């Protein structure tokens, strides 16, 4: 039934788009106008394609230069989570949940680690080897050892 969620997703995109526009000013004011894909990897060539990022957060094994990447879901902010669902995995929260459960049931695939604050995110990025996550650019700017891979969304 995940396809059916795409109908919801179209509506959700509209709602999220309007929400994002409405929130753009306060976002800019709070430094939340750029959502970025981040890692603590020092590899300057870590330029993940959109499909690879989607696979990574859907529970597939994604290997870059022999390293198994570890997804970290950042649930510190509702708008950031909506941007992740829309721009990274392209499905509703319910469909994403069911997809992860199904992958776990079929092959025992671990679901992405979850963090619920900026501090937890920075700890996960630096302590979990080869981790990849996403964050507001303002939250990771100037943080040693955390690198921006690319921009996911901008207000």
């Amino acid at each position, binding site marked *: *039934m*995940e*396809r*059916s969620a*795409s*109908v919801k997703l179209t509506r959700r995109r509209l709602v999220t788009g309007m929400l994002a526009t409405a929130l753009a000013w306060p976002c800019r004011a709070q430094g939340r106008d750029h959502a970025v894909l981040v890692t603590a990897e020092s590899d300057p060539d870590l330029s993940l394609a959109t*499909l690879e990022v*989607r*696979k990574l957060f*859907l529970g*597939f*094994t*994604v*290997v870059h230069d*022999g*390293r*198994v990447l*570890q997804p970290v879901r950042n649930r510190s902010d509702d708008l950031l989570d909506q941007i992740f669902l829309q721009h990274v995995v392209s499905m509703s929260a*319910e469909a994403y*949940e*069911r*997809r992860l*459960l*199904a992958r*776990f*049931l*079929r*092959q*025992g*695939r*671990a*679901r992405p680690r979850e963090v619920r604050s900026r501090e937890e995110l920075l700890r996960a990025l630096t302590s*979990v*080897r*080869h981790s990849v996550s996403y964050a507001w650019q303002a939250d990771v700017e100037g943080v040693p050892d955390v690198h921006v891979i690319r921009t996911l969304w901008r207000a």
Partner: protein
Amino acid sequence: MHSVKFLGAFFLLAGLLGEALPIRAEELSQRTELLIFASGEVRGFDGGQPFVESDNLLLSADLLGTWTRGRWHALAEVLLTTDEQELERLQLGWEPVPDTFLWIGRFHQPGSIWNTRQHHGQYLQPSITRPAIENWEDEGGVLPQHVEGLLFESRRPLGARRGVALSAGVGISAQLKDGALEPMKLFNPRNNDRLPSYSMQIAFLPDLTEDDAVGLLASHNELAFDPLPRSDGYDHVDLEVLGCYLDIGRGRWQLTSTAYAVHAKVSGALAAAEDRFLAGYLQLQYQLDGGLTALARLEATGGTADSAYLVLFPGFVEGRSVLDLRWDFAPRQALSLELADTHAPRKDYRELRIQWSAALP
């Protein structure tokens, strides 16, 4: 001889894939996870209790634990119900390249698309019951579902977005005992006269990252009778199954269908009988607003009259119509209502089921 060839091909394929894109041994990250699929079901029957059903209240908890370290994986699934307690799956796996696994242990045979997708996770299953032809061995199922041995699973890209999925299993098959199939119990094996099992599925995936698939299924199982000798002179069954399936979603609709052609040869030193029959189902789901999902399923068989194999299963279901309404009323929790009209050779009956299911935590 077949076993030797199969195992040879199995390890050759594994070796080739292992060289293709190795994961560095030092890049290890360990994870463990536990999940419980819980359910409670109340059921009623009109026209007499079916042969295989016991109580009208069924509580179950499917405990699923996994461990991952680098390219190594372990998975254990234990089912606890008011009817039974059983180790359903216990697999140790190696992932030589991304999304390609070699497993050893007890697994669900890949010749069934329903069971390799739903396993015992009742919450994720769209209907309360599974199609009768996909029933577990202890629920009157006529096709073996649990195998102990080796399992190969791979999902590979085909072009930019499409993909192909292949699963193949080889191992020890079930026995025929007291009108039912009985798979080997891993920690209580009665290994006398266990015969081999081979099964596979291959699927085309329109989108590698989605669950939509169209595919083929095949299995060959040799089933020994227990105890022996029997008065009819039979001592084993050669069961060959060929199937095809599709599982496609479009918008709010989901269409799932499988058809099997079964060839059974019941034989012994003094007697032999052969038969062929067809079995399949067509299921259509529609997602309504408010977390509701409606489902209709039609199950049918053909050529089952005078089957020397099916006569061994007194609870075999020849046809069934199923209607389901599911309500996902809270995160990871659902209530379902199911009505079914069942035709079996010995009696027809109607069923009503109400179920709560959840994935915890």
